[in-house]
């Protein structure tokens, strides 16, 4: 294979040495102008970082080394992510790396793996994920985009939405309905589609930050070869669900709340209200909530690092961090006073942007399963409440 492979197995390092190596390298190499971007970057913006990681062989920490990944243990993977986040490294167009790659490795044919995996590592293919649909937000399994076999081609019709950075991608992986006669989770398959196929149209959606991070993708009689189906037919739901574990952990990372709290403290100082007793009491409570949240995050991490299965209670992390992030961002707004509505940072230094933090906090209780859905899941699957 032509893909870059690291020359050593970094699992052999102890955690501290591993952390130091990551930190040293990123401090020496990360493009300074890309630190802590206020909005998610498009490919053309983050490409220097993608290329750096690709060349270094660090693009796919979780993939096995035989496929060009770093083959890191979950524990080391988390350390790497912590160090990236600590430095304020931008998130990449990573759906091919973190979602599609592991799925292909587990379910695809050798031919599919040999073709697609190296192209991800080299940055030749940038993938986006086509799961959600306008009528199926929380109820993902009710999706209606259909694929019908016509000779040796799938004919795909339907519409996907919330497709992150579809406007950057040249491929999309889709969940589509291939059997309408069975119960809704059962008739779903997993199909790969090039974005330049006739009938594929992308329409960016502006979000509340006036950013086009999400898109709608329309599929109108799109034809792809039969071999673009991955795994068994009608097993797409099961395959997609099986790969969510690590993603779900990161939705509960203390990063956003921690960053917001540090900005709140800086903002209070800049505004000269840091000694206000009511504000101090609130900040103390946030500091306490954040400290306990970090312990909760660490406890899940430890389970994963020890190879223990982590169940639905991991949804607690997402609820805890997203709602804390929202509380902190609301306090930033409160103390910003009349400047709370400003689009640009109110103090350029330190990028103190209360409205930006406030708006960024909004979707954290919506995407990846709303806070309400997360509570339903815990109630049913962890607390085993009836109904």
């Amino acid at each position, binding site marked *: 294979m032509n893909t870059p492979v690291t020359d050593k197995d970094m699992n052999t390092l102890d955690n501290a040495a591993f952390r130091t190596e990551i930190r040293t390298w990123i401090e020496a190499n990360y493009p300074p102008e890309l630190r802590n971007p206020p909005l998610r970057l498009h490919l053309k913006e983050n490409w220097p970082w993608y290329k750096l990681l690709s060349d270094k062989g660090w693009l796919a920490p979780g993939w096995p080394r035989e496929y060009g990944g770093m083959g890191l243990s979950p524990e080391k993977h988390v350390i790497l992510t912590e160090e990236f986040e600590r430095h304020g490294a931008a998130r990449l167009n990573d759906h091919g790396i973190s979602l599609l790659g592991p799925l292909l490795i587990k379910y695809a044919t050798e031919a599919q793996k040999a073709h697609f995996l190296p192209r991800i590592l080299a940055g030749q293919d940038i993938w986006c994920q086509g799961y959600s649909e306008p009528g199926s937000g929380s*109820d993902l399994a009710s999706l209606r985009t259909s694929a019908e076999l016509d000779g040796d081609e799938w004919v795909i019709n339907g519409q996907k939405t919330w497709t992150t950075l579809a406007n950057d991608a040249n491929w999309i992986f889709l969940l589509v309905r291939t059997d309408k006669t069975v119960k809704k989770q059962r008739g779903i398959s997993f199909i790969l589609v090039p974005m330049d196929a006739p009938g594929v149209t992308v329409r960016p959606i502006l979000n509340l930050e*006036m950013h086009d991070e999400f898109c709608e993708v329309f599929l109108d009689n799109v034809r792809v070869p039969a071999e673009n189906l991955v795994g068994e037919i009608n097993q797409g739901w099961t395959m997609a669900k099986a790969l969510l574990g690590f993603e779900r952990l990161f939705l509960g990372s203390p990063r956003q709340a921690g960053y917001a709290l540090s900005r709140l403290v800086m903002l209070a100082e800049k505004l000269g209200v840091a000694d206000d007793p009511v504000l101090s009491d609130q900040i103390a409570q946030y500091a306490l909530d954040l400290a306990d949240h970090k312990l909760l995050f660490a406890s899940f991490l430890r389970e994963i690092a020890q190879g223990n299965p982590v169940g639905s209670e991991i949804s607690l992390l997402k609820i805890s961090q997203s709602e804390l992030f929202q509380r902190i961002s609301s306090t930033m707004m409160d103390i910003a006073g009349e*400047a709370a509505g400003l689009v640009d940072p109110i103090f350029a230094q330190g990028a103190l942007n209360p409205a930006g933090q406030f708006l960024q906090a*909004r979707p954290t209780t919506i995407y990846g399963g709303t806070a309400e859905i997360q509570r339903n899941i815990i109630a049913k699957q962890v607390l085993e409440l009836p109904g």
Partner: protein
Amino acid sequence: MTLNTSISEREENSRMISESAAAALADGVARARGLRFSSPGFDRAQWSEFAELGWLSLRLPEDRGGLGMGVSEYCALAQQLGRALVPEPLIGAIGALGMLPDAALTEVVEGRRIVLPALSCSADSPTELRAGKLYGTAVHVPMAAGADAFLVRLDAGDYALIDASADGLTMDCANTHDGGHLGTLHFDGAAAEQVSNDNPDTWEDATLATAAYLQGVAEASYELTLDFLKTRQQFGKPIGSYQALQHRMVDLYLELSLLRVSIAGATAAIDDGATGAARRAEVSRARARASRAADVICRQAVQLHGGIGYTDEADIGLFLRKNMTLQASFGGQSMHRRRFYNEKGVGQ
């Protein structure tokens, strides 16, 4: 000024102004969306229509050529402005108008000249008038780019009236999320006229009207969300059939109900003659409630809309953005909570 109009008269007036405003603002939210992030962010033609409808002079005493209406009627109008997310800076302009000398009134009442207030100054660069020349920096001036003149509060307490085109006045504008902007005005010896404050209640009125504007924002957000809950389907039924969402909506309804009575109580008390500390307590109670209620309702409205609520194309986001911008306008929650408590105590 017609004092002590009866409750029924006020209710009738309020109903009329509310209906005529709703009719005049029928294309409300779509119009507001279209004007976002333009300069000056609002529509002068529309401003003239508002003036013709008498909205600018609504609170001006009859003996000064106004309609002499009460805060009840004013707040009925402001609610409609909020429901339609009207970007024109009417509340500021009406406040400034209440302070103007007679000679300056006519053009302003007729909508030909827009005078906006600039009430805060930079701590580093206080506003002062020396020998007819204005110095210092005024900050957070909503919709400054659309003004013909500014009524600037001087650091020492009085006011100065200054032409927007005056030499020695420069302006920076920073966009706000509602599509408008806040201006920073730098005065470097610009010619200005001193205006003495003979109407201390004009900013009290503006504060209360801002609360009423936020009530309109909250009401419209609540209604959009209630409709959404009744129509949006997930898992085979309308999401409004889920008990957790139902209870959340009831909490928003309670908050909205408290906001309604809080503003109605304040307008009635003031039109019945409350003055001084009693008046300030009424205004602050309503203003604090308005920020609180609008904030919780707009935030929850976006949450209850789910992913759709996070898109710019959904109208609910426009209400959230307006709420963000207005939270602290004429004083935020904590300041008014404190003022209410200082003026009123626990009310036992």
